[in-house]
């Protein structure tokens, strides 16, 4: 087999790993961070390592602008900051409006999607318990880095205002 092809074959996997790192870094650099109230406790799923699973919490979702999701229109959450460490205010709007007029825009489907936060294996059982407890007292928040309505990375989980340890 030609040497160039062998070189390409062995280099591709390493390039893919590098690409994944660069893409994640770029996304982080472009993102804005928002604090969200979280709820909805699920047990960890061992299939994908150790992580805590949660959902964004929005008790009321006022309508800023009518948006018909069943009509092919993409609906978003309009994110408005209230304070540096306070959860954002959420209203429902079209993605175009949310992107133009709000501090940030997030696809509405994230309200019904479970998000994951990886944690150190040894601390998993106690963190599990702490998260469940904080959710019960509505004192759990998540910091999300958002780079467009569909590009989200979980940056931090906070229980009673204190960030919990992520894998370093």
């Amino acid at each position, binding site marked *: 087999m030609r040497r160039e092809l*062998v070189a390409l*074959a*062995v280099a591709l996997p390493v390039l*893919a790993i590098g690409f994944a790192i660069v893409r994640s870094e770029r996304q982080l650099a472009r993102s804005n961070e928002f604090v969200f109230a979280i709820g909805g406790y699920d047990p960890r799923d061992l299939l994908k*390592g150790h992580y805590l699973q949660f959902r964004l919490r929005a008790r009321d979702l006022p309508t800023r602008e009518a948006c018909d999701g069943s009509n092919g229109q993409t609906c978003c959450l309009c994110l408005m900051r209230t304070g540096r460490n306070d959860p954002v205010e959420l209203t429902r709007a079209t993605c175009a409006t949310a992107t133009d007029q709000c501090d940030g825009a997030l696809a509405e489907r994230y309200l019904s999607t479970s998000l994951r936060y990886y944690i150190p294996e040894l601390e998993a059982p106690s963190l599990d318990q702490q998260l469940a407890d904080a959710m019960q007292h509505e004192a759990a928040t998540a910091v999300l880095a958002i780079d467009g309505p569909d590009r989200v*990375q979980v940056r931090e989980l906070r229980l009673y205002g204190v960030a919990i340890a992520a*894998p370093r």
Partner: protein
Amino acid sequence: MSLRSQLDRWQAAGLIDAGTAERIEAHEAAQRRPIGLYALAALGGGTIALGIISLVAANWDAIGPRVKLGLDLALGIALAAASYYAAVRALRWATEVLVTVLYGFTLASLSLVGQIYQLDTPEYQALCLWSAVTLPLVLLGRSHFLAALVLLGLVTTHGFAFEALFDAIEGAAWAGRTTDDDLVATLLFTSPLLYAVLARVPWLVRERPHYAVTVTAAAWSAIAIGGFALQFLWYESVSEAPQLQLALATTAVLAGGFVWALPRLYPQLPLRARQGIAALFALAWIALVLSTAFNRDSLDVAGALLQIAWLGLLSWTCLHAGRLRTFNLLTAALALRIVVVYFEVFHSLLSTGMGLITGGVLTLLMAWLWRRQTRKLATRLAPGDAKGASDAA
């Protein structure tokens, strides 16, 4: 039994002389490959890859993310360089080990990136990326073990991707119930055919025969199991027929196209065996149409009989393809299915001593018949050129 013992036996029986025995031994010695060494090397490589995955899964809490990623990349580059060196120097066993390790390492590294950046990417996306970027790499290997490992990776990726696709179709506004069923049926019907065709890519057959054999075996196992499982549709009642519309036409075209391509895909296969395959696809398609196109109650007997017909036709095809070992396996499955039919039909008798005795007698009778008839059938029906060639191919 070792070759030497067999040659001694044949010599003692007067089948070959001493000169022939020596020539056979010399020929076999020249053909011998260090398969054991390859297998051990690949096994060792696989274990190391698994170890790396476990390490990542267990989280290296003591190391910072950037150091961790840097080390990961450095290890990846070192592995890639070593794989390159081994491949261009044609160091077979070293290439097998290193390719296996790099294959597993890539998946572990993508998971590590996902963990560190807290990415919530669906599993199928990571698996698709992994399978795509490692495809040229794994083609540097040659062993059955690596072929089986890669096939497992591909099938897992395939499964996760289909699950995501089916979920997306189910939730899509444009897809009604029939569209759903149509797409699912078409994709499930097509998948094993796709692997069967891929396994016959001329480069793969010529340059990576172990890969071609492994993928072919897996594809035909999937076809055999799929055709058998298809008949379970008869065990359900249909009240909103037709359940399938577009899928019936699509699968007919695909099955017809596959049968049409058989002489090109398997030029060595005897005509009878190709006819058997054509009949198998016809049976599968007709069963799909009849079981879904009309409103009906559940027809368990039809399902059971069609499963017996399926196994019988498969056995006949294998016999004509010269696959005697598979033929024996399938006829054993056929005998077992007949015994299960007895228990399905007379299940109420299972609680009585007489029912159990009759069932036991039937089982023994089927075992005896199977043992007696398979040998006779194999001798009577097998074409001359297929006898004995069989499963070595």
